[in-house]
């Protein structure tokens, strides 16, 4: 669905590159996470893929279109949810969606249905200017689905949302994936990426350092330990045991069999820890 080969970009048209010779592919139906801290080159890459930035070097194909050639009809297949809410504040939520629906050449989704999906059905006739930041973000998110996109660009889809709403958004992303939608998710939130992405790419200083599935990364970089707390003779005991060591595995089994277990945690590495391990940099 997306093919990027040797892509580079400079805002100043010189050798100061915001994106340096990156290559990757996103398969149809895949949720691909593009992870990195601020200024890493995430937004630049997404800007080029969505046509908001001019492609300078490399080859990029998006939804079957070579983006160097101006073909507006490609946007019929693409949806973009921006990090910064950008809806018409003087239009109601419903008017915003109806207007955007009219701009596409393909059958669009019912705006009422979309507003219901993001929990704005009771506010559909209120002007977006009266909305909270989170509500505007949900409206922007809903708008990105109006044309039933085959390829969905999601820029920080849950940033600034309360956990309940964030959970709804994540459910919608999963649901769209189940319907075959390909997603390109840009974020610096490793937990979201871990929950939603089939594969992730770590980008830092304009370069992709690594691309793999979260599961493989955890296996490769994780510690393979279990931390266990149990009650022995009235006292709480705590032990950390290796899951790859036979004696430790036997000990885990004995503890579970003989004592009352208080807590049991696998100590696999988080994506954030792996990111720091791989890039030597944090995500903020």
């Amino acid at each position, binding site marked *: 669905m997306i093919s990027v080969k040797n892509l580079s970009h400079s805002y100043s048209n010189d050798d100061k590159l915001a994106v340096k010779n990156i290559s990757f592919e996103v398969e149809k139906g895949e949720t691909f996470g593009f992870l990195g801290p601020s200024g890493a080159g995430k937004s630049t890459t997404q800007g080029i893929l*969505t046509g*908001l930035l001019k492609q300078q070097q490399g080859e990029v194909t998006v939804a079957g279109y070579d983006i160097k050639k101006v073909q*507006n009809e490609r946007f019929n297949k693409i949806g973009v949810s*921006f990090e910064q809410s*950008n*809806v018409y504040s*003087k239009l109601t939520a419903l008017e915003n969606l109806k207007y955007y629906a009219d*701009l596409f050449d393909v059958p669009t989704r019912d705006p009422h249905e979309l507003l219901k999906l993001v929990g704005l059905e009771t506010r559909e006739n209120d002007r977006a200017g009266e909305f909270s930041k989170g509500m505007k973000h949900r409206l*922007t998110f809903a708008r990105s689905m109006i044309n039933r996109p085959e390829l969905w660009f999601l820029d920080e889809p849950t940033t600034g949302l309360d956990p309940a709403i964030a959970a709804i958004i994540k459910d919608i992303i999963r649901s769209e994936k189940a319907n075959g939608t390909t997603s390109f998710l840009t974020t610096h939130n490793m937990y979201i990426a871990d929950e939603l992405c089939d594969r992730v790419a770590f980008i830092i200083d304009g370069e992709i350092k690594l691309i793999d599935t979260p599961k493989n990364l955890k296996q490769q970089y994780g510690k393979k330990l279990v931390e266990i707390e149990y009650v022995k003779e009235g006292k709480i005991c705590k032990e950390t045991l290796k899951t790859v060591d036979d004696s430790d595995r036997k000990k885990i089994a004995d503890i579970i069999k003989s004592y009352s277990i208080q807590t049991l945690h696998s100590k696999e590495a988080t994506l954030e820890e792996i990111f720091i391990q791989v890039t030597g940099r944090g995500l903020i």
Partner: protein
Amino acid sequence: MKIVSTYVKEMKIAFRGFYVYIEIFVAIIALIILLVAVKENPEGKSEEYLYNDIPSEILQDLYEKDIEKGSIRFIEDTELTIKPGVFTVLNKDTGFEETFEYKEEKTVIAKTYQKLNTDTGEVKGKAYVLENEEDMIRLSNSTGKVGATTTMDASGNFSFKYYLQGYETKRYSDVLYLLHTFSEDDIKAAMDQQTTRKIGGSGRLNNREAVVPIFIAFSGALMSFFIIMSYVFLDKSQGVIKAFAVTPSSVWKYLLSKILVMLTTVLISSSIVVIPIMKLKPNYLLLFLFLIASTFLFSCFGLLIASFFDNISKAFGVLYLTMIGLMLPAFSYYISSFDPLWIRFLPTYPILEGFKGIMKGQADVPYILTYTLVFLVGGGILLALANFRFEKSLTV
């Protein structure tokens, strides 16, 4: 369909914002001012003080003849106050200087006449006739207006003595001299031999109507240059342009929808002023065609300028200077003698001339249509440039 949706959306946003209401409000205020405060044919501003050293029965006869001819009209006896002061009167013929000094304020009664155009009845000025020459001289000096003494000798010939302020041009005093040296027929015959060129057609706009071309050119067409930039910068600040850029719709449809909003609001605000004042005098088809063409030109120009800036603060310098520059032809409009060649190259010059002709009801149709075409083609080129610029910069 997309252009219709975008236009409808833009109209909703426009009418939920305040720019449109400002335009309409300004038009209504302008209309009220024109109807209430600007007289169609105001009284002439020229005022003069007269003293007649003529036997009363002859003077009465002369006034009656002038009233009958329609060149003057008696209004009332006016009470005038003369303030104390010191001044010197120089006789230009003899070089004799006479100083007058008055320490007391004085109140006098003057017979007041309006001077009229015998053909149109239009008021040309006002004359105060005093009983005392010294009072006339004092009033002329204290008000800075012309004073005159008319004397009749024993043979029935009139002589005139003018009291001027000293700063009048030689041409002015020569005219006064000619008026009383040659007969009316001689002057008319000399004038008829002059080659004259009539500027702006033969029709005439009264004082109130003369403001209308200025209003629709500047508050209508030229203002669209400013307002369309404001709309674009508002969209930029809200980021909605980015959202538009990732739809299959073209940038030019977005730009054209803004222009259509401008045309709609300018037609509304201009009609508010034009229709009540001009009534059926102008050719409205020609008027709206010319208004659409000129608004289109300035809207496209505004879009092009907006494509170079991120927000209105950064664009303000260019915006301000451009608008000031484009307003300069207003000087030529009001001051006929100020008409340098360079000012004719500003688009507002032919716009003002065009609107003036249309308002007179005697429009030079080929002139209007030629400039309509020029504005539409020019606007189209600017729109193409703006489209090119926005495709590159709209989304960043």
